[in-house]
């Protein structure tokens, strides 16, 4: 079996963030693949809820991950009003994923800018906008962000706060009345960042195989702190890789 792609490594690392029994809210791409991979590997009781409104999707072992299989294997489909009101806002989502948005900014406190780069009314770049990222980051029990690690994206401070991660420090979430722990992990194609428990600033806690710390620092727009016990991400086993490739045969062609 060929070596895992960067996107597949990201999917494995994101999958490892899923604990058994958690209710996970996922969108297209890596987040959906990660949650269903976790169900196949270590979290068979995870409840996967898709942003389409498909609740408790239980793919079978040989199912690929497609819109059709997700629709067919859902326990039920709910309206987006129900999904975002009765599930996410009400606190019934344990783990929410925020997926990669091309061009979006992420800052040292894990705030996300996916509306504009530059001034809102005269942007240097118009980005796709929030989707449900603001509410996922605000209301899920915890949030995992999946994003490509590029200097342009990893900025000291976002130009526009589309979604609050940790604001400007460890007290902001409580001051704003936000639920949950906020972003607990940022999974990139180079490594993993996690908020420092004291300062809430993102710290490099793992690098992926073949990546060194200096590469990560070079793609980060602030003085990135590195955990003293920074790990190297374990390679997936052949069995794990096979499980992922049943889910996403063409995963290298899709954007995360």
């Amino acid at each position, binding site marked *: 079996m060929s070596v895992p792609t960067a996107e597949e490594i990201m999917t494995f690392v994101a999958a490892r963030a899923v604990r058994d029994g958690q209710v996970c809210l996922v969108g297209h791409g890596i987040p959906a693949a990660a949650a269903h991979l976790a169900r196949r590997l270590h979290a068979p009781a995870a409840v996967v809820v898709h942003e*389409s409104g498909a609740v408790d999707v239980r793919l079978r072992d040989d199912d690929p991950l497609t819109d059709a299989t997700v629709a067919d294997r859902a326990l039920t489909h709910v309206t*987006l009003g129900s999904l975002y009101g009765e599930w996410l806002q009400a606190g019934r989502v344990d783990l929410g994923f925020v997926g990669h948005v*091309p061009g979006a900014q992420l800052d040292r406190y894990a705030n996300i800018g996916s509306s504009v780069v530059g001034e809102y009314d005269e942007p240097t770049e118009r980005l796709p906008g929030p989707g449900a990222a603001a509410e996922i980051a605000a209301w899920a029990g915890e949030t995992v962000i999946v994003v490509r690690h590029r200097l342009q994206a990893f900025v000291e401070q976002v130009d526009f706060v589309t979604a609050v991660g940790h604001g400007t420090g460890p007290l902001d979430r409580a001051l704003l009345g936000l639920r949950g722990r906020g972003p607990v992990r940022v999974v990139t194609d180079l490594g993993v960042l996690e908020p420092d428990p004291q300062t809430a600033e993102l710290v490099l806690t793992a690098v992926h195989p073949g990546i060194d710390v200096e590469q990560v620092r070079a793609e980060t727009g602030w003085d990135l702190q590195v955990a003293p016990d920074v790990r190297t991400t374990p390679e997936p086993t052949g069995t794990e890789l096979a499980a992922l490739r049943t889910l996403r045969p063409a995963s290298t062609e899709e954007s995360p």
Partner: protein
Amino acid sequence: MPKIVDLTTAVGDLVHDGATVALEGVDHLVPYAAAHELVRLRRRRLTLVRASSDQLTDQLVGAGCVDTLVFSHAAGPDGRPPARLLDALGHDWPAPLRIEEHTHPVMAARYAAGAARVPFGVVRDTGTDLPHHTPTITSIRCPFTGSAVTAVAALVPDVTVVHAQRADRDGNVEIRGPVGLQRDAVHAARAALVTVEEIVDALDPAPGAVVLPKAVVTAVVAAPGGAAPSRVHGFYEPDDAALRDWADISADRRRFGAWLDAMAGTS
């Protein structure tokens, strides 16, 4: 009682220049046939409400039908905003475009308030910067507890357009599979136009299935294939090549112009 009519009649009668028209459906049941009829009929100055703004939004904006877009996410299959939308925002081509940016949950809450005919809906605060730039969302105090909450203005489209699998001859409509915002958007609107894959003598919905009773439907149009290139659960899968190829047409004003000419010539 809803009228079963042809597409040109339904769109022509229900959607007027300057109207606020919601076209909902993301990846599934996207009402392309009705959108293309808006292009053919050269509707202008529309306020387009489309939470997940994709190729369909791009086509209507590029065709000059839209002067205001209300949305919560705007991206094609590559995850970036589509090119006609960016051309309108950045270069006023073919016309200036005003935007009103929300989040998906706020769009759902605005439709729900509109559907219930109350002036606003309430959601919890998220800390986003959007309320500083968007007039239809603002922070208020709960009159009972004094805590800060976010008020969002009710959204009542003049017309909501959705696609569904089937309707019966009385105009009751059944939606299978992911239902997204469509149910709320239909109930919120002053009039609802539903295009369907097929019209049958009688529906046989499972208990609890999403049904739009005829009382909330204004017009039904038989439009088989009317959601292609998106998917219709139980009928067809997405045409991924067509969805991907749109980026090349959209990226170039001349190629888009050729698409527009071809579209205008087919009715």
